[in-house]
């Protein structure tokens, strides 16, 4: 299906994909804005006090993050389905209807978060305001909406995969997306037992971001390599299956590293430590895989041209997207792999659990593993909808990627330093009490780290504005080959 890789014109599935990408990009901006509010509150605690408190800003920050990624993930699947299966997506009309339901539901949820914020301690709050469970705070009515939308999406994917040509990439996505949707059900009930609560809560959070989402990224990376540099499908798909084995083999039981301290038995120390320590391995494999394929196809191109080296054409058909994909290979390994491994052993985690260490890891991992590749997919969509043969960097695309990456890395470094202060002062030295907590927070190293986090957050946000500008303008830019 090589012929229609680069053209999104005429495909309703691809049109729907661009809708998903657009809303995802808007939410990405919202995520950064609320992150900035929360970052300012660390530095100036009185900022918006009892107007938009840290808890609300932070909830919107992480919820916008999760939702924009889910939107972009759905969008990317709708984008690649016609290429991979050779047919128009089945049930696309329902897909479009569900998109609007999804958008409307999110708008309502956000307005309630912003203006109602908290409710009385009864079930109505859980049903209609928010559930107070980090990452999946969405009220229960919205949970049911999300399940319906996700089922519709999985239905589209399955019907299309079964009717059209089912490539390895589509097969992996089918298996992965049904697990992704099904796992959400584990986070939809209320219990008085906080240990049971958190046990199942992690089924959603961990088995999403450290298992099903990672496999999703593997599939998207495979599609991107075929699309952008013409990598050999058989090789790419073989790697993909190896990655699935390694990701699920380590990630599913790696869940144990969340069960060290929540009331669950001690055997999770060993299981969690062993399997989560293996989690970086597939990320190394994915990293090698991307660079190896790039080098291999570029090498083949150079041999085929038989001209002097200066005239050898780059095999990359979309420079900005490929930049983001390569960043993904680096960022996934660094953010999820290295920063995750730092504090995954129970001996270390006893002191780092619940400190800014986690937040340092969270920032670099979500960015490196997911934001990068999804932004890359947005560039592929811009290329496709504008009929561009070879897409080049623009000034703003280069500044955007540099500032966003620099900003996130800067925030990660700052938060890591803050984490060290917390671990040493509040935990190891003073034993985790209220007084210990605030002694750590008022330390000079901690305070300065928070200043730097805010500065780097602002850099990230400016980078985002440039990215938005590039998204809106690059499609018509005459610099690209058409």
């Amino acid at each position: 299906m090589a012929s229609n890789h680069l053209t999104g014109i005429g495909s309703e599935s691809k049109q729907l994909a661009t809708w998903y990408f657009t809303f995802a990009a808007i939410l990405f901006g919202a995520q950064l804005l609320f992150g900035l509010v929360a970052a300012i509150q660390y530095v100036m605690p009185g900022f918006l006090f009892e107007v938009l408190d840290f808890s609300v800003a932070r909830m919107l920050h992480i919820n916008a993050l999760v939702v924009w990624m889910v939107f972009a993930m759905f969008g990317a699947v709708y984008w690649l389905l016609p290429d991979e299966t050779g047919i128009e997506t089945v049930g696309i009309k329902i897909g479009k209807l569900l998109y609007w339901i999804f958008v409307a539901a999110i708008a309502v949820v956000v307005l309630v978060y912003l203006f109602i914020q908290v409710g009385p301690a009864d079930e109505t709050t859980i049903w209609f305001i928010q559930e107070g469970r980090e990452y999946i705070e969405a009220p229960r009515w919205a949970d049911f909406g999300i399940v319906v939308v996700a089922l519709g999406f999985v239905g589209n994917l399955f019907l299309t995969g079964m009717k059209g040509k089912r490539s390895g990439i589509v097969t992996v996505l089918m298996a992965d997306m049904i697990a992704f949707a099904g796992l959400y059900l584990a986070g939809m009930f209320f219990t008085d037992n906080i240990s049971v609560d958190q046990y199942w809560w992690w089924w959603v959070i961990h088995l999403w971001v450290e298992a099903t989402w990672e496999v999703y990224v593997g599939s998207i990376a495979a599609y991107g390599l075929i699309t952008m540099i013409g990598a050999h499908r058989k090789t790419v798909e073989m790697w993909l299956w190896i990655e699935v084995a390694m990701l699920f083999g380590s990630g599913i039981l790696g869940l144990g590293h969340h069960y060290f301290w929540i009331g669950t038995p001690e055997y999770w120390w060993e299981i969690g430590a062993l399997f989560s320590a293996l989690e970086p391995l597939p990320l190394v494999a994915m990293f090698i895989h991307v660079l190896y394929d790039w080098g291999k196809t570029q090498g083949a191109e150079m041999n085929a041209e038989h001209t002097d080296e200066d005239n050898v054409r780059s095999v990359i058909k979309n420079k900005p997207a490929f930049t983001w994909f390569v960043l993904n290979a680096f960022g996934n390994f660094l953010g999820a792999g290295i920063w995750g491994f730092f504090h995954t052993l129970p001996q270390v985690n006893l002191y780092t659990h619940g400190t800014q260490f986690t937040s340092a890891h969270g920032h670099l991992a979500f960015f490196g593993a997911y934001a990068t590749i999804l932004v890359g997919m947005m560039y592929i969509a811009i290329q496709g909808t504008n009929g561009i043969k070879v897409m080049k960097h623009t000034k703003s695309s280069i500044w955007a990627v540099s500032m966003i990456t620099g900003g996130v890395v800067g925030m990660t470094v700052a938060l890591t330093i803050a984490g060290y202060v917390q671990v040493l002062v509040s935990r190891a030295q003073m034993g985790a009490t209220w007084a210990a907590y605030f002694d750590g927070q008022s330390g000079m190293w901690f305070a300065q780290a928070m200043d730097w986090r805010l500065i780097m957050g602002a850099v990230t946000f400016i980078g985002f504005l440039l990215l938005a500008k590039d998204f809106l303008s690059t499609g018509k830019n005459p610099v690209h080959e058409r």
Partner: protein
Amino acid sequence: MANKSVWSDNRFWQRSAAWVTGFASVLLIWLTFDTSAQISMGNDADLQNGVTKRVPGPTVINYKITYEMSQKRGHEVPIIGGNDGKGMSLFQEKETFFGRDDWSEEEAAELLHLGKLGTQAKNCMNCHTLLGNGAYYAPDLTKAWLDPAWGPNGSMQAMTGKDTKEEAMAEFLQHPSQYPTHERMMPNLGITAEEAKGIVAFLKHMSSIDTNGFPRNFAKIQGAVHGK
């Protein structure tokens, strides 16, 4: 492709992926059954009969709770109603909670239910951490009940002018911005007196959960940072 190797055969890797995923999933489900049994909430009979549960029943609020080193396990464990000297709970020493140490199973369960709903309805987790999970903008609440600051000579109890730990905590929860401890304050979340009672019961119950020694050295070292 003259020589076919199994290592470059997609079907081999596809099957491997399926088997590995299936095996890991089955193991996880099996462990989930075991863990679920171990973390199910106990009841009043367990406490009466001296049965140690990882998550004790709600009537644990009638007992004195401490957090002490267990030589056998090599870390601190919650001790309910007195220590037998070897790091095991005696379930004997009672402690009044809002003036009573005879909360019935139904009453205690109702309080805990209200408290757990309260922690979610007020979104505690997006500033605090519970069992170490949540946001990092405010102190961890896992063992907050055992924090000396709320105890008889503690600064927080003194600040609220109350005579007991539970009353001091409930007062703070209802009017947090009246009692600023630091520049970073807890906002007023409209917590009622009844909800506050429930949330304090939830916190006392949470402090009795066996968290495998997290947090380490809780409240054992005071003011070390200032060389006191």
